């Protein structure tokens, strides 16, 4: 396989705070520090952002074929409109695919049925007919459903297809392994085969921790479908992303320079092996950015002496050129005693991402506090978070941080709400979306019609426009 070495100079200098230009058929790598110029003679913490931007697929080119397994919950709780909508959504999704794609359909209740064994989609009608005949009833063998789907998908696994399991479930897994860690373990294993699982939770009875563990460990998406009427729309969005994959098996290696200490990588499950940070992304989508933010401790250094922070290598499979590409970038900082100089060189975009993910970690901590029943501490943390985000939103003029600030404020009011089950699902979903830069599926902040009672005190917030993030 052809390997194209491309060096993208993401050099940061005192005079220029620019990112390098990119080729149209390649993923764009941006490596940048939140503070290209740091205070001299002081040990400081800074954010390093590694951003990957999926190129636009040329209209003329053939879409990347997919190998997708649909896993539908047909347990008793799906009876009625839920299963009807789910079947309709699945049929619509199948109709969008073509003969180059590979499809399998697995349905489960107490037991599992491989409704459509993995096959090239040459006979759409047959597949759709089978889906339409599904009848609900029984309990929820979620783990087994995903297990069988993975086995189906694996039958025709190759590097030319986008491998994806799309799981729709409305209930607690009550037959078979059901711990979030067990689903996470399966997800992590699937990710190594470049199979990602998108976990869609329907209604209010599913276990969002289990779904998030499965999705995040496998690099898929997570969706909270509060109302069955949204199933088709969200399926559609999921397939939009699946069908817009431009790169796969993206492996990011950050060699952190000696003396600089990598502290943590937000969100993304990266390994920090000493000075070497390794992370993998299963897929990159067309015209979408995925990034990771590494927090580093920078040692105290004298003014005017540039310091290399990290060398970044990215290897990926280019789905357009069918080649393995390599991108490199590096980041360094300089030091100044002048606050003015320091401030003038701040990379707003990187800082914004760092602040956002930092606040997201605290948001997760607030959820844990709330789970433990410490509502007061949880609220305090969310309000502190809101303050923190607000400060940076003003400094950076960031709409995104402002929206996140509002989200934290609203969440702080919902901690004691009788609809906490619902709000928790929304909270976990937003945490996941922030970590993974998932573009779709933002939670609806307005109270759902299915809950009678007083309207929420908060006025509609622009926070739901999170998808403005690019």
């Amino acid at each position, binding site marked *: 396989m052809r390997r194209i070495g491309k060096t993208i100079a993401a050099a940061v200098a005192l005079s220029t705070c620019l990112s390098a230009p990119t080729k149209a058929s390649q993923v764009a790598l941006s490596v940048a520090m939140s503070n290209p110029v740091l205070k001299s003679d002081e040990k400081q913490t800074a954010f390093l952002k590694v951003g990957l931007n999926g190129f636009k697929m040329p209209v003329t080119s053939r879409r990347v074929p997919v190998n997708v397994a649909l896993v539908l919950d047909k347990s008793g709780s799906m009876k009625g409109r839920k299963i009807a909508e789910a079947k309709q959504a699945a049929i619509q999704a199948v109709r969008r695919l073509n003969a180059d794609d590979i499809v399998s359909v697995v349905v489960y209740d*107490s*037991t*599992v*049925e*491989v409704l459509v*064994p993995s096959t090239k989609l040459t006979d759409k009608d047959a597949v759709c007919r089978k889906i339409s005949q599904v009848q609900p*009833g*029984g309990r929820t*063998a979620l*783990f*087994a459903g*995903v*297990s*069988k789907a*993975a*086995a189906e998908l694996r039958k025709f696994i190759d590097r030319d297809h986008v491998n994806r399991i799309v799981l729709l479930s409305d209930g607690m897994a009550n*037959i*078979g*392994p059901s*711990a979030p*860690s*067990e*689903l*996470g*373990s*399966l*997800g*992590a*294993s*699937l990710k*190594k*085969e470049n199979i990602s699982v998108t976990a869609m939770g329907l209604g209010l009875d599913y276990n969002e921790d289990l779904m998030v563990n499965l999705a995040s460990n496998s690099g898929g998406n997570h969706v909270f479908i509060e109302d069955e009427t949204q199933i088709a729309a969200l399926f559609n969005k999921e397939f939009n992303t699946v069908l817009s994959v431009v790169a796969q098996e993206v*492996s990011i290696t950050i060699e952190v320079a000696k003396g600089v200490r990598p502290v943590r990588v937000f969100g993304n499950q990266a*390994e*920090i*092996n*000493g000075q*070497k940070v*390794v992370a*993998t992304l299963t897929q990159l989508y067309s015209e979408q950015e995925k990034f990771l933010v590494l927090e580093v401790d920078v040692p105290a250094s004298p003014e005017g002496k540039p310091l290399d922070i990290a060398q970044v290598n990215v290897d990926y499979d280019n789905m357009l050129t069918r080649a393995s590409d390599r991108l490199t970038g590096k980041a360094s900082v300089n030091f100044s005693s002048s606050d003015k100089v320091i401030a003038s060189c701040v990379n707003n975009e990187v800082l914004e991402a760092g602040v956002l993910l930092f606040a997201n970690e605290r948001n997760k901590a607030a959820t844990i506090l709330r789970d433990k029943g410490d509502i007061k501490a949880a609220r305090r943390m969310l309000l502190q978070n809101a303050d923190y985000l607000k400060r940076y939103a003003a400094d950076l003029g960031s709409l995104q941080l402002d929206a996140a600030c509002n989200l934290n404020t609203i969440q702080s009011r919902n901690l004691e709400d009788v609809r906490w089950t619902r709000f928790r699902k929304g909270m976990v979903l937003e945490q996941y979306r922030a970590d993974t830069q998932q573009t779709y599926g933002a939670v609806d902040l307005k109270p759902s019609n299915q809950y009678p009672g007083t309207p929420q005190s908060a006025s509609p917030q622009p926070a739901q426009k999170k998808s403005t993030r690019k």
Partner: protein
Amino acid sequence: MILIVVLPLAGLTWLGMRVARDDEASLQRKFEDVFAIQIRDIDRIISRHFETLSSELSATARKVEDHPDDIRALLRESPQVRQIIIVDTTGAVLHPDPATELNLSEREFLHEAQELIRDRDLIHAWRADSDHSQRLPAAKTDKEKSAASNLPSASEGWHVWYWGRGVHLIFWQRRADGNVVGLLVERGRWMADLIAALPETVDQQHEEIPVGSTSRFRLVDSMGDSVYEWGEYEPPEESAPLVESAVSAPLASWRLQAVVPENLIAVQSSGILFQLVTGIVAATVALSVLATFFWREYSREVRQASQRVSFVNQVSHELKTPLTNIRMYADLLADDLDNLDDGSGDKASDRLRVIVSESQRLSRLISNVLTFGRQQREALVLRYRQASVDELVRRVVEQFSPTLERLGITTELTLNAAQPVSLDDDAIEQILVNLISNVEKYAADGGVLKISSSLTTTSVTINVADDGPGIPIAMQHAIFEPFVRVSSRLEDAAGTGIGLSIARDLARLHGGDLRIADSATGASFSVELRTSEEDRK
């Protein structure tokens, strides 16, 4: 009559139930056998799955190099493996080396595996001498103890490790340098792959495993929680399995279960039950028909007999009136002849006496028949009157005297019951007549007829004894039954065979009895009569 039907039916039902129960038990055994075989087949799938997995992991283990970066790189491309541990011959952990900078996953693993690493026996087993190393793809393992410790020659095998949410599998391999490489198998993954290898409810891949619509197979973990299920039958929660068996190593703490509906065996055996019920119904019908036939025959005979009795009754009644007239006119005629002084009537008188005697005999016969008829209709009623028993005795003996004289029987009376008591004199007379008739009939060879009577405050006893041939002991019970006679030969004696029966019934009606009394010779009867209530007062 009902017994004719019920008893055989009960017997038949009991037998049938036993057969059905035996059959059900054997059916249950058959079912268990069938499911046990299926479970064995499933277990074979599991064993094969782990054999394949162990050979894959064996290959992976051989790729493990010493440098942490290489190990981490290998982990990133090995979906089956979560972590890798290397232990040297002294039991020290070479990787993940706590002295170096470890990533989060490695630190977590070391933390979780502390107990495992401290288990010196285990480490010892892993690094045991490899002089004659042999491949054991699935060395049997047990909780916290590798069975490999019993098989020190094994160079690789499974170790089962209980931690957190249950069973964890470690595949270990001893290398040439004596170090042991342990691969912690990704728990979610091996469970998923195992599930994928097992059949589905609607299965297109495992044709060798029949999936009945009436069963549910379950793979349950060491905690008894279901890991995976298949089969169309949806059992209620907590339903007990028909057949259960442990899974082969390394998952020896897991079990395979077959659950069937509780009524499955009942449904299968209902065929036998149906046959049984059909048989019983048929037998009932047949026996009922038979019983009805017998009943109708019996009632027809009873009806005919009672018709005969009633005919005889009517005839007797009809006979009685003219006979009474004959007797009356014969008596009158005898008186007239006696009044003739010339003695010319003597011969005629003798003949007339014969007529009177014979008519008396006929009269007795008829009254016996009529009494018997009333007895059969249960219409025998006593009419109490004041009467002297001795007088009655004398009157009856007087009646019989011509006949007795002719037969040469002398009469010896010892009468001590002259006082009148309350009794039915007609009935007593009939008793005496019947007894003396018997003497006349059976003891016709002469001798003495002894009649004695005695009286107490409550009863009268009359003894009638003769010098005749007596009653054979074998007959003594039977003679009181109607129509039984000591001799049935026609020429022996005349009679209807109901005399003694009537006599005893009449005595019993009086609250007394008629018994055969002890006697040295001949027959001796003893009549005991309770005198009526008012008399006793």
